[in-house]
């Protein structure tokens, strides 16, 4: 498996203050491997080191220690070559305020060395893809937050990056705009196969978009894997609540695989299972087989937010 991002023992400390220096360790020996074509999410509480990591990958920050390879190349020694092949889009987008959307795209396209005809074609394509055509002549400081964010994504695609770094791409956006942005990101990953590494505070977003997620806390990765596996590893499970009539097959239920916990009263029970989709049919079969009548059935699925809470504690 070819890796798009290889990070080993990454350390970064920020020093602030003139007389009384204050040291903040942002990353403390972080390791991360992201395969080519993968869509990974970086989650973690504020100050965990998510943005620091992304900025080191984008060569905007220099680490004190550690090895960073992008697309098989060392970041420090192949900076120029890598700049051509990666790009970054961040939430709270800022661009040159008195340039229009088209002019901003033109300026950045020129920075990536796109020649005249190719540049024009690319800009038109991106204006169309992000529904920015109507804003092409509008100055950046007159755009809404959502449109600024779309411009930020459009700018990040100018060089058709093999690795796209997204730093909270939907932060501060209205739900409908955020939804549209998520669709566009997903489409981009699906159609172009771009490797995406995204930081987010939105667990639903991470769960919907990311194939794998990594939890960063205090500068190290606490866990990574598929959202489903993380829930299983933490034994967070999903809860099935059943109101019933009849004799509950408690011992059979407790002996079933995938049951994390079980609580019951005379007419209700709460069953904590590893995977709802797999266990619910089995449990229903058991109840029906034992002729237990079900009055009511409720389901509470755990999500990445529970995983986040568990790792943030």
């Amino acid at each position, binding site marked *: 498996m070819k890796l798009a991002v290889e990070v080993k023992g990454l350390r970064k400390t*920020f*020093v602030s203050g003139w007389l009384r220096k204050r040291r903040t360790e942002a990353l403390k020996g972080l390791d991360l491997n992201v395969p080519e074509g993968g869509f990974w999410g970086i989650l973690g509480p504020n100050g965990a080191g998510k943005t620091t990591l992304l*900025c080191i990958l*984008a*060569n*905007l*920050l*220099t680490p004190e220690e550690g090895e960073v390879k992008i697309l098989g190349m060392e970041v420090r020694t192949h900076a*120029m*070559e890598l*700049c*051509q092949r*990666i*790009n*970054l889009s*961040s939430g709270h987008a*800022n*661009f*040159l*305020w*008195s*340039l229009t959307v088209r*002019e901003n795209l*033109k*300026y*950045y396209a*020129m*920075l*990536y*060395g*796109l*020649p005249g005809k190719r540049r024009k074609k690319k800009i038109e394509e991106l204006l169309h893809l992000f529904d920015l055509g109507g804003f092409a002549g509008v*100055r*950046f400081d007159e755009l809404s937050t959502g449109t600024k964010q779309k411009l930020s994504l459009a*700018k990040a695609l100018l060089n058709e990056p093999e690795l796209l770094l997204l730093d909270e791409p939907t932060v501060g956006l209205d739900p409908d705009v955020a939804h549209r942005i998520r669709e566009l990101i997903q489409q981009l990953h699906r159609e172009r196969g771009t490797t995406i590494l995204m930081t987010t505070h939105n667990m639903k977003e991470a769960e919907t978009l990311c194939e794998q997620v990594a939890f960063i806390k205090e500068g190290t990765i606490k866990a990574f894997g598929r959202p489903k596996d993380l829930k299983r590893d933490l034994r967070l499970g999903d809860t099935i609540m059943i109101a019933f009539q009849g004799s509950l097959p408690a011992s059979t239920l407790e002996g079933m695989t995938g049951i994390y916990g079980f609580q019951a009263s005379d007419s209700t029970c709460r069953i904590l299972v590893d995977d709802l989709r797999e266990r619910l049919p089995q449990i229903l079969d058991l109840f029906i087989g034992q002729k237990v009548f079900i009055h009511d059935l409720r389901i509470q699925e755990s999500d990445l937010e529970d995983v986040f809470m568990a790792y943030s504690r």
Partner: protein
Amino acid sequence: MKMSSWLIADELIKTRAFVFKNWVMTKRNIFTIFEILFWPVVGFLSVGLLTEFAGLQPQMRAFLLVGVVSMSTIQVCQLDVAYVLLYDVWSKAVKHGFIAPVGVRHLLLGSLIVGMARGAAVFFILMGASYYFFDFDFMAVGTGPMILFLLGLFLCAATVGILVCILVLIFGNRADVAAWSLVSLMLLVCGIYYPITILPRWVTPLSEIIPLTYFLDYFRHFYGFKPTFSHVLAKGFILVFVYLFLEIILMKAALRKAKKTGLLLKLSE
């Protein structure tokens, strides 16, 4: 062959990007009119009228007018070099520029081209005003010396503009005030309004390390002023190229430091 022409094209496009940015920002900036017309013309007229009031000889008037025109030209030209970074700082868009595959050379050359265009505009406007209002002909020295002098002024401006960029990369946006104040420091020591011979002895070494001193000396000798130094033009160009070379190295070092300290990101927040 094909590779080298592709590389040249790539260099040109990236340099043009900064020309494009500075040019559009200049067009949209209301202060452009003040920078190119208002302040230079007001400054020029004030000095010119002062020479009338003081009843100065044409030679002395030439001395002062050359000084004030040079000063305005340098001020406007260096602003563009400084602005190439400051526009990004003020827009909080620094990181987008620095994750792109561009070098300091593209940034500086692109901005200097616009700076030279704006500086030349100021120079020629004031040159016309000198002729019209004060009967002073800049062209009397001939085209060659005029071009050499103007080139010297632009290169001096580049050294000041790059210094502003370096200070911004070291101290952050607090250093943007340098864009307007550094030139004023030169005013004191390199003989804009008076010959450096009248300066206290301990200041003279400072004047001698500023290239503008030599370019002014060179241009004024056409109006009958004996140069203070020998080989003024050579000394001026050697000094200015040494400074440019050192500043480019310093700017790259400042950029590396800004990436280490995180200042580059702070400038985007």
